[in-house]
């Protein structure tokens, strides 16, 4: 398949690995920000091929993983209402809230549906005016434009029965928080290719300059990631700290301007709590007042309660790259994809689930 096979080519991958090994003279800690990249690293075993000096830690970029417990609890409360048809991306259904998850709501008779696009929820609202259709709008800058479009379309059509439970998060503020942390070990970042496809990489240039850290925007195939790692190692070894773009077939400097415009029109920046990280100032998107009629939180008046994570779960440190999933005593025992304690074990993009699925032979039984 074009644009796929050549980025999974063993010869090219080996050449890049050799290039990295040739350049590297001392240990470097690199972080891939995006969960999709973590998944690729694990699925293809990319990290296994790297020289010992290159340590990869896994970033907070799994939207499912960082959605706070309170929002899951709100989703569960809304989805449990008899008048509601609750529509979500599939991965969110298994994320445990403090009491239940959406799969259990569905099993208990709730009308919970999986969709690949928020426009499916708009279609449902149009087809079933007697139902309250709620879309669970989560994700980074990548999914936000499509979700914005759905709300925009619903308002234009006057679909009073469509609303969105929006809990969007933005990558740069989280990255800034990581970089400001005194515990930070990360010396170079693989930037989130899909986020930058929408947003461009101007913001990453600013971060790179401010914190004097190399950032290479990377793609999602094994060769993309190896090339991004090679570019990071080259920068680090040469003492440079720049924002570079490896994922040129998708990412431009300015990004997707129409997508940015719809985001701007529908959403505004707000403070947001990240599961495992805590409150990150100006790191979320919420609906603007002009779209308040389609805000599920106000429509259903769900209480904001604060909920505690299971004490045993170390996902907070995993999401900040401070520990590896296998360092957690619950990993693979009390915490598995069937019975996850924390969100990174739920989503295919979560670091813990990726380790569990692809890495157990290395981690031991």
């Amino acid at each position, binding site marked *: 398949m074009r644009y796929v096979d050549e980025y999974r080519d063993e010869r090219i991958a080996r050449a890049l690995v050799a290039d990295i090994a040739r350049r590297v003279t001392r240990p470097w800690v690199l972080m891939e920000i995006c969960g999709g990249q973590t998944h690729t690293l694990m699925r293809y075993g990319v990290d296994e091929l790297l020289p010992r000096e290159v340590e990869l830690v896994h970033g907070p970029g799994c939207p499912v993983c960082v959605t706070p417990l309170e929002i899951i609890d709100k989703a569960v409360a809304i989805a449990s209402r008899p008048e509601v048809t609750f529509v979500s991306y599939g991965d969110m259904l298994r994320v445990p809230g403090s009491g239940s998850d959406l799969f259990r709501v569905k099993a208990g008779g709730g009308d919970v549906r999986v969709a690949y696009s928020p426009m499916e929820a708009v279609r449902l609202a149009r087809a079933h005016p007697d139902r309250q259709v709620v879309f669970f709008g989560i994700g980074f800058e990548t999914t936000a434009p499509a979700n914005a479009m759905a709300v925009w379309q619903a308002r234009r059509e006057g679909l009073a029965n469509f609303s969105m439970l929006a809990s969007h998060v933005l990558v740069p503020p989280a990255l800034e928080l990581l970089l400001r942390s005194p515990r930070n070990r990360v010396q170079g970042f693989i930037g989130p290719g899909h986020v930058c496809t929408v947003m461009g990489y101007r913001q990453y240039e600013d971060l790179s300059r401010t914190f004097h850290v190399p950032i290479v925007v990377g793609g999602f195939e094994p060769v993309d990631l190896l090339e991004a790692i090679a570019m990071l190692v080259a920068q680090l070894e040469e003492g440079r700290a720049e924002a570079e773009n490896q994922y040129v077939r998708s990412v431009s400097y300015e990004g997707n301007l129409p997508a940015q415009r719809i985001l701007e029109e529908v959403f505004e920046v707000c403070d947001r709590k990240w599961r495992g990280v805590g409150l990150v100032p100006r790191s979320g998107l919420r609906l603007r007042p002009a779209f308040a009629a389609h805000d599920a939180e106000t429509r259903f008046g769900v209480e904001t309660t604060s909920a505690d994570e299971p004490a045993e779960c170390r996902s907070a440190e995993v999401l900040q790259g401070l520990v590896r999933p296998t360092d957690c005593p619950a990993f693979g025992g009390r915490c598995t994809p069937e*019975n996850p304690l924390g969100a990174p074990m739920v989503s295919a993009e979560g670091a813990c689930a990726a380790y569990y699925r692809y890495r*157990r032979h290395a981690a031991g039984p």
Partner: protein
Amino acid sequence: MFHCPVPVPVGDRVLLGHGSGGKLSADLLRQVILPAFANPALDRLDDQAVVEVRGLRLAFTTDTFVVKPLVFPGGDIGSLAVHGTINDLAMGGARPLFLSAAFILEEGLPMETLRRVTASLQGAAAAAGVPVVTGDTKVVEKGSGDGLFVNTSGIGLVEDGLLLSSDQARPRDAVLLSGTLGDHGIAILAQREGLEFECPIESDSAALHGLVARLLAATREVRCLRDPTRGGLASALNEIAARSGVGMLLDERAIPVREEVKGACEMLGLDPLYVANEGKLVAIVAAGAAEAALGALRDHPLGREARRIGTVTEGHPGLVAMRTVIGATRVVDMLAGDQLPRIC
């Protein structure tokens, strides 16, 4: 005495994931179903039970079909039910003899749909040479069923001396796959999600007893056969590895997947290793017989694209590993819950 190695409760309600063919299904089986019925024939956990009656070895199987949509490119619930049941018999090395068919009909189902499904079921049975000799119909109130559910059972005869079972794999055996992965699951999903491709993807739904007969005529050193339906190839191989106490090493590049299926999987974020098939088999064959077995499979129209995809190993028992396209290795795990909702 029933022993449960995983002390995880299945929960207080049935979830959709309990029907996925992955780990949740296995838990349901182990914690609720098996303790209720435990007996030696059942405990083998093969696709069919083989029981001895007056010197004859009878294979017996049953399967229920709840696929949505009822009609899909390459088949419908009727032909799928016949193929699925024949294949469950064939994977035990049995020659299928007779089928039953039972229908659960939802009030309001168009009679035309029922006619089409019964005609297709009969057509598939006739083509396979296995008659439907008994059956049943029940009607449930509107809202209590999803149009039409079909249950089929089948019996067949297993030759003396032939033992195909998931606990028979041995180190150094070859892992063979009869053709491309994922065609059925993606055909269903594409239809359900309204995805369109330049070349429409058709289900691979087919009766495999002819292919199995060809294989067994070429070599008797076959240890185990499985049709990777729900849960896909990954689940089938994990079950064999666990039951036989062996490991496996697959070669990702050797696993055939159609370009259209690959493309759909990329778009939908699915892994073809977990997508359902209804006309493929995986064969564990003694190393020395691998070439003969592969030749026999390729001689049959349903096995033309057969490949050797891996080897059974002594190391890492119970774990299926795979050499990836870039030359590293990773674990091929069983799926925890559902990858797709309800595909067979």
